[in-house]
């Protein structure tokens, strides 16, 4: 009898604790989502004054906010492509070949990851102003590529750790030349590492504030725009956009986690 109650208490305590952790994680997000439907117009926009879609309507009239979002997405896509290409080649190259100074290069990779972002931001700013590269989209793309490349390298390298090089030899043995082997064997086997790295690079780029702050010139990315606007409390149209981004992200996660893509692929193949 006693043992049974003990177990029940244990179980309830576990549920309560777990619930608190999740509440702590998700309550702030819930506030944002709720506030995006809040009809209040008085700053700081926190008292509930009824349900409305007004902020979503207003959002699509707010051209500067929408533009900044477009800029952020464009920078994220371009810098992700660059970082993925450079990072993948670097990881494969460092895996396959032995050369002098490999250990040093290896160690240096961790620097952009561990140094405070503010240091990276300032040094990039110094670099760009000394080389007279005008600050704007271009410098933002360079900067974002710089800090996300190591993450791609680490991800691809983790995949390479369990990689059996003899499958490439087997491919060549069976009549595939080097290019066909890279396309048919190397790339598909490394794909999970590459796409994981790319996803990481994309998220890092999309919500970067500090490095962007130093390298943006006149261009305003979405996070910078948000930072600017919160001086007067978080405007509900920012909440609205945040909610849309949240929905988009959740859909993306569901898409990648479920077998949906595989099923569609299989359908197309048939």
């Amino acid at each position, binding site marked *: 009898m006693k043992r049974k109650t003990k177990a029940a208490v244990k179980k309830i305590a576990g549920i309560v604790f777990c619930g608190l952790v999740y509440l702590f994680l998700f309550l702030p997000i819930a506030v944002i989502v709720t506030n995006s439907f809040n009809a209040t117009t008085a700053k700081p926009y926190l008292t509930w004054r009824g349900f409305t879609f007004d902020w979503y309507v207003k959002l699509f009239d707010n051209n500067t906010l929408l533009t900044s979002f477009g800029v952020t997405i464009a920078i994220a896509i371009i810098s992700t492509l660059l970082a993925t290409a450079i990072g993948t080649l670097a990881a494969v190259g460092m895996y396959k070949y032995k050369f002098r100074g490999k250990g040093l290069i290896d160690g240096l990779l961790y620097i952009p990851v561990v140094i405070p972002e503010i240091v990276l931001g300032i040094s990039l700013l110094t670099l760009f102003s000394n080389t007279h590269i005008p600050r704007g989209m271009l410098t933002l793309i360079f900067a974002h590529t710089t800090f996300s490349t190591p993450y791609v390298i680490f991800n691809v390298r983790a995949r390479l750790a369990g990689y059996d090089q003899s499958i490439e*030899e087997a491919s060549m043995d069976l009549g*595939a030349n080097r290019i066909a082997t890279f396309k048919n064997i190397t790339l598909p086997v490394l*794909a999970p590492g590459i796409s994981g790295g790319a996803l990481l690079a994309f998220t890092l780029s999309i919500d970067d504030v500090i490095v962007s702050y130093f390298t943006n010139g006149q261009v305003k990315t979405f996070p910078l725009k948000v930072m600017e606007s919160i001086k007067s409390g978080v405007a509900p149209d920012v909440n609205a956009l945040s909610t849309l981004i949240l929905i988009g992200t959740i859909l993306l996660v569901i898409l990648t986690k479920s077998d949906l893509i595989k099923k569609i692929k299989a359908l197309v193949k048939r």
Partner: protein
Amino acid sequence: MADEKKVIVEIKNVNKLYGDNHVVKDFNLDVYEGEFLTLLGSSGCGKTTTLRMIAGFEEPTSGSISVEGEDIHNKEPYERDVNTVFQSYALFPHMTIYDNVAYGLKMKKVKKPEIKERVTEMLDLVQLGGFERRYPSQLSGGQKQRVAIARALINKPKVLLLDEPLGALDLKLRKQMQLELKRLQKKLNITFIYVTHDQEEALTMSDRICIMNEGVLQQVGTPFDIYETPATKFVATFIGETNIFDGHVLLAENGRLHIAVEPGDFVVNGTDFISGDMLSVSVRPERMLYSETPVEGFNLSGTVKDQIYVGSVLKTVVVLSNGNEVKIERLAGQELPKGGRVYLYWNDGDAKLIHTFDNVFASAVENIVME
């Protein structure tokens, strides 16, 4: 071996160096069409390197390799009519069994219906029909091995190279796969060049065995030749168990040799030697005989150290006066008292005489040349 056999792979004066490391030394070998040839040696003897040079993954430092009379030096691995079964299987993890086996045909741009037909046929041949849609990770070790073999055979190679393909399997499965590989080879009549360090495996499967040691070819021959007439002391000790007596010829007369070894001397038949030659005498444990009374022509005796009854045979260890141990295997018979004195002998022809001076001389010459 029938002498009208056609040579399919010809390896001529091949050397392979990695920096200062001389891995394969002046290697010459003819491989005949349709035979099962095994490269046998302990790890690091250069056998895998030799195989990889035939496949095209390594280039010989000097010398040439021809397949069907054509020098393949300038051919990439994907241009050679040889296929390889890798030690690690090297199956493509992201492809189904069907796609793995079909890969070689797809690369050769064979039409889809023909691919389907040939893959199905090949999977049936290795008894994996019905596994088409599985992935390599869903198969057992033995099944993976069959897929690797099917994949390598699908292009109907002139020569199939196998690099210790059964090394990762457990003993029972290995024995079964040995017989199956042999059956496949006979059925398809494809030349197999098989690398292994397992002498029993080599004896079971091969038409001919090529024994290598430290990059040097020691002997090529049928399992019978290799076991019965080893060419070097290395071969004698590497294949099966044996007792080696090092010594020299005291007197050579009328085809009889009087040989002195450290703890004794004896007279055997032999013509290839003259007085003073250094030699090793190899006598297999199952050919070694003993008597409790002295035997004429033999002055070789010791004391019984141990006798172990292991069912089919009685194993006896005799210690000679210099402390060397001699192993004797007899069909179970009467036991000897421990510590008793026995006199060793053998029948004429059961002792294999191996020149050792030649080997010492050869390596001495080689050392001088190397320097």
